[in-house]
């Protein structure tokens, strides 16, 4: 049932990309447990504006857990305490009256802070443009039912394709690695028959672009824990296997 609680927030404030940031404490009083976490921040911001203070910058858009725009470190956990849940779908009913909550932006050198809790995640787009596609110009596709895809294959590809590109995997990783993000896109395409023609090239290009921006995976598994879509770490093992194969095959083709 719905109740009203008081929270103490410790929020990272940073005026711009090149300025120093610091934590500022705010009292979030009289918050309904039916409010979402971001609605709680909306309320805090309204009160800040009333008091003549600039509101806390945080990003969100769909507030349905699918666009991947939102993402906060809440008490040191990417997207907060509820498993398989993006920040926008977290609700205050997950917290207790009197809780202290620390709110930070994603922390990774490849995600520079833009302001307060907003970061720049363009490095993820760079990985996609390196090969996260199937080359098929508009108009050149064959009839969709010409290529049967076993249901199980399609389902597994889908599990990987469910990635929302929020960057929680990077934020949660002690090495700021983007293996889960990259492996999810790789396996979505590498598993499907449509993706076979470019499989080895894609794998090499995406992995090497990833390595140019992000840290290395040392199998901590924090990414799987933090992923709001619960994408399993198994995809990383598959992607690694594909990468080794790709290195051999691509060399053969070159030779």
């Amino acid at each position, binding site marked *: 049932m719905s109740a009203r609680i008081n929270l103490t927030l410790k929020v990272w404030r940073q005026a711009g990309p090149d300025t120093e940031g610091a934590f500022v404490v705010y009292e979030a009083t009289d918050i309904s447990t*039916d409010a979402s976490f971001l609605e709680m921040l*909306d309320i805090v911001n309204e009160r800040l504006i009333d008091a003549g203070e600039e509101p806390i910058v945080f990003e969100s858009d769909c507030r349905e857990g699918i*666009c991947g*725009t939102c993402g906060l470190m809440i008490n040191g956990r990417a997207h907060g305490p509820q498993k398989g849940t993006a920040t926008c*779908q977290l609700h205050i009913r997950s917290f207790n009256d009197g809780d202290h909550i620390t709110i930070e932006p994603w922390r990774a050198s490849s995600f520079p802070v833009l302001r307060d809790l907003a970061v720049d995640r363009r490095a993820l787009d760079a990985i996609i443009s390196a090969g996260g596609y199937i080359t098929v110009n508009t108009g050149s596709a064959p009839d*969709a039912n010409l290529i049967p895809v076993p249901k199980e294959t399609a389902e597994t590809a889908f599990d990987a394709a469910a990635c929302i590109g929020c960057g929680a995997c990077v934020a949660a990783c002690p090495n700021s690695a983007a293996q889960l993000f990259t492996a999810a896109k790789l396996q979505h395409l590498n598993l499907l028959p449509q993706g076979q023609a470019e499989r080895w090239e894609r794998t090499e290009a995406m992995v090497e672009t990833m390595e140019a921006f992000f840290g290395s995976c040392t199998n901590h598994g924090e990414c799987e824990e933090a992923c709001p879509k619960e994408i399993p770490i198994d995809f990383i093992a598959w992607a690694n296997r594909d990468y080794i194969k790709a290195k051999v095959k691509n060399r053969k083709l070159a030779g």
Partner: protein
Amino acid sequence: MIGSLDARIPAGSLENKWTDHKFSMRLVNPNNKRRFDIIVVGSGLAGASAAASLGELGYRVKVLTYHDSPRRAHSIAAQGGINGAKNYQNDGDSVFRLFYDTIKGGDYRSREANVYRLAEVSVDIIDQATAQGVPFAREYGGLLDNRSFGGAQVSRTFYARGQTGQQLLLGAYSALMRQVAAGTVELHTRSEMLELVMHDGRAVGVITRDLISGEVQAHSAHAVVLATGGYGNVYFLSTNAKMCNVTAAWRAHRKGALFANPCYTQIHPTCIPASDDFQSKLTLMSESLRNDGRIWVPQTHDDGRGPDEIPDDDRDYFLERKYPAFGNLVPRDVASRNAKAVVDEGRGVGPLCNGVYLDFSDAIGRDGADVIRAKYGNLFDMYERITGENPYQVPMRIYPATHYTMGGLWVDYELMSNVAGLFVLGEANFSDHGANRLGASALMQGLADGYFVLPYTIGNYLADYLGEAALNPNEPVFKDAKQQVTDEVARWLSIGGTHSVDYYHRELGKLVWDYIGMSRNQTGLEKALSEIAALGEEYHRNVRVLGSADTLNQSLEKAGRVADLFELAELMARDALTREESCGGHFREEHQTEEGEALRDDEQFAHVAAWEWQGAGTASTRHREELAFENVELTQRSYK
């Protein structure tokens, strides 16, 4: 001034119009394509698919989006599916049937030629998306699965779990990023279009503000394509993403582009009801749920019992009772109005009595929980996350919310607005859904426009300008437009009023929902006109926007968007007031049948109303495009 509105619909039989027109349109040869600059604003299904396709053809494309990545666009949130007249299920579907259903579903207020073309290219979209690796649902034999969707009696909807929009957008986004890598598309993220630049009566560029640095920039091109989505956020509470707005389209409207049928808004029947004042948006539950869920309320007013304590005899399955043929699958507007009616009668359910039940107990009893979980698992999880209730055990509570806007910038058959060189795609245009959009047709239209229509039609426009360079972005027209944007930004920061932008947006939303919502009447609409104007005046005088222009400043971004929504809301009221009939999503209480169904007036209103801006504070001028129906007979929709 606007002459008569000519949609430039090609002659010939309905079936051959598009094929013939494709042949008669001029081409730009491959070597010349790289000499044309095209700006695409927006990176959703329509924008991303258009930009990728134009890039593949060899044009120089610039994509502008206010998002941090093109993949964030709100198309991503579409759940249910995409229609395609493949007839894979052998159940009698055809291009003509999809055309017919769409025209009828739109309550005979859309253009036959556009709708037929949409149905025709729907099959190509499925092929294209599948080839891109979009993981549509499949049968055990490995072939594509289909389901039937709100308002259709055939199974023609392709789907990817409850995330069809996400998967289709990721397909278009991947095609777009391939072109970014190839160098044909230049991508500008976090760039918001704030002005359309005109020269010699043509659209020649746009002005953007960089949302991080605040820099105001000029972008010049041979043509401008707007794919900037709908205006559902005029209601404040809607299923639209928080950033969705009308600004790009509205700024073009203020420069002369006509805005058509703004009163056609779609209220989606299956959303989670609001729980309190702080509610920031509403969440849609895909209407595919209506395939297996049964909608009901208690027979009596103020029944205080929980749903499991109410026996079948005391329940009113009102859609099944009133519409035995379609039952829970009646079109969205019919389902929504009926839900509103039972809630208004005092039979609403939930703590605030503001919902109706959507009950899966029969389906779970029939098919087992596992089958239901396989179909709707992620939707059930989403519902539980938001409400804290488990829909496998307790019926869902749903209520209508604004979801889609059929109105938008007026375009001709080639998707060009009345402003030469300004093309409008997807939800941002008005063209294909008439007064009501059928389920699983928004994704179809966005991709049809972007993949298969614009890439042909834009060449027909550009062919006239071969050898002409795009205007220099340092020309006075660009400088003046930049100055205008800079001044506007400064003005918001200088007001120093007492209420936030969100405060005014919320208040505006309440007015629009109350008077221009699910049902409208003359008194309410007249009230809306005066109250919106008064609140808008106060907004410009008393809004508080803190901070500065040269940083990431979200209040400042919203300030301009909400100002545009105020102007749009007035136009919606005016459009709703002058359309003295009920059709699709536009329900005028004065115009209904004895059974309370929408009553059209085909004699007076079988036309598109396209409004011309006359300046702030001056009433817009109403233009008409007559709709000719040569291939379907206008009937009253009946779903009984």
